[in-house]
């Protein structure tokens, strides 16, 4: 793969937080091409959120700690760019939306415009982007509300709108729908599918394996700071090590328990086909 087509590259990256006894990620190598939609999953303390913080540059720029290896984001070495510079092109949605809100704005629409405003985007352009981003994530009717009065689900949509108003090339999403109801989740994933179709690169941490398999053509499975599998979901979740240490989508588990022969399905439509053939 030519370097010019990569969005995010990790080369033998190890990182330990300040005063941490062990590394949060160890010897990670990963290359993500422009336009990919990559799902990242793994148990607690696998290093998933750290991966996002490293790609954003918050680790080590904000958190301190020790970084070995190279992180290249949109073809620039992470050591050469400040987080502020990078935020013009890269957006990170935090796991907990309560920590994402600036606290400096008292209306939802002002909060959405906070990023582009700080980057010196013209007033008219900010207004247009705010309107578009709010409509996209479905919070236009909340424009005049105070961000701190919103529910968890509304706050999560607001945080995403704030990122989209920056028109990022690379989106790092740490469990983007954790606070949303199933209908809201489906709506946000539709938005992400649209962004993916328009060529934006998405790296998404997600625990719900069924969702991950449905949406992401490529899955990275991490355990204890290391990548243990990387590939199409059907390959990744048919590996025993992944099933044991990360878990399986419900369809994979059912096919295994029902005594069907591998490879087991990871998506609803494949499971329907596989089980359906046995019924026929």
């Amino acid at each position, binding site marked *: 793969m030519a370097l010019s087509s990569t969005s995010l590259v990790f080369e033998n990256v190890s990182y330990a937080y300040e005063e941490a006894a062990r590394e949060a990620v160890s010897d990670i190598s990963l290359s993500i091409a422009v336009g990919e939609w990559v799902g990242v999953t793994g148990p607690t303390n696998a290093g998933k*959120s750290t991966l996002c913080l490293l790609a954003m540059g918050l680790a080590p720029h904000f958190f301190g700690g020790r970084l070995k290896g190279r992180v290249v984001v949109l073809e620039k070495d992470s050591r050469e760019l400040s987080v502020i510079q990078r935020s013009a092109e890269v957006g990170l949605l935090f796991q907990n939306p309560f920590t994402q809100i600036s606290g400096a704005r008292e209306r939802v629409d002002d909060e959405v415009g906070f990023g582009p405003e700080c980057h010196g985007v013209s007033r008219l352009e900010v207004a247009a982007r705010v309107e578009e981003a709010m409509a996209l994530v479905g919070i236009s009717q909340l424009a005049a509300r105070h961000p701190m009065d919103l529910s968890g689900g*509304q706050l999560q949509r607001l945080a995403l709108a704030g990122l989209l108003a920056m028109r990022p090339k690379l989106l790092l999403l740490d469990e983007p729908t954790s606070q949303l*109801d199933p209908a809201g989740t489906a709506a946000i994933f539709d938005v992400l599918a649209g962004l993916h179709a328009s060529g934006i690169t998405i790296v998404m941490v997600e*625990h719900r394996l069924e969702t991950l398999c449905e949406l992401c053509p490529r899955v990275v499975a991490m355990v204890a700071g290391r990548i243990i599998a990387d590939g199409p979901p059907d390959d990744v979740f048919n590996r025993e090590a992944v099933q044991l240490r990360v878990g399986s989508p*419900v369809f994979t588990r*059912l096919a295994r328990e029902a005594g069907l022969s591998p490879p087991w399905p990871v998506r*609803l439509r494949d499971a*329907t086909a596989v089980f*359906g053939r046995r019924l026929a």
Partner: protein
Amino acid sequence: MRFAYPGGVEVYPEPGLTLTLGSGVTALVGENGAGKTTLTKLLIGLLRPSAGSVTVAGLEVAKITVAAMARTVGYSFQNPDDQLFERTVQAEVSFGPRVLRRSAEGIERGVAWALRACGLEGKEDVHPHDLGLSERKWVAIASALAGEPAVVVLDEPTLGQDYPSRERLRSLVRELDDRGRSVLVVTHDMDFVGEACPTAVVLSHGRVRYSGPTSKAFADHSVIQEAGLEPPHVDSLARMLGLSECVSEADFLSAWRR
């Protein structure tokens, strides 16, 4: 029961909410803004109804202080950071029973059990904020359990939890049920509802749209749609295959084997 937030947002419109929750494990589901978290706060007296009343284990909540309600109801918040303030996991988890002036022996027993049930053994001396979100969530749950309350309310316990953690949560609610506790789980995780909660209440726009066995909760599509729900994955697969309704993996496998 009626309730409106200051500023006038009416959560449970005319004629108000009438709902009886039995013992055992009950899921409370519904769209964002349906009134789920508000309901849990009314159960522990953090909010007071503007009309009607809320009774928990024979106690009328409005007549009792929040501190006294804490003897009966253990509550873990949706966002653990709203709840955690001590410097170690041990201090955090023992805070409730200490304030409730439980006996030293009772505190020790409750805390030890809560730490074990929540997978926090060995983390007693860690600062809660040095833990990841999902582990902080477990500290919040352990804190709700350590006083050994008769009623346990868990707001979004599966949020940010990996598969092993969700399995642990499943066995935790089963154990609470075995110990005769009543458990109310607020969640958007329909797979978890199907696996772990025999009873479900569907709330939508402040009204009860369904209350009964979870196995029948996903049958009415208009209710599902209005409440922003999706059936559990096993249910979707069973329907595609023309099998009878299934809400858990065990249901599916027995239907399949038949």
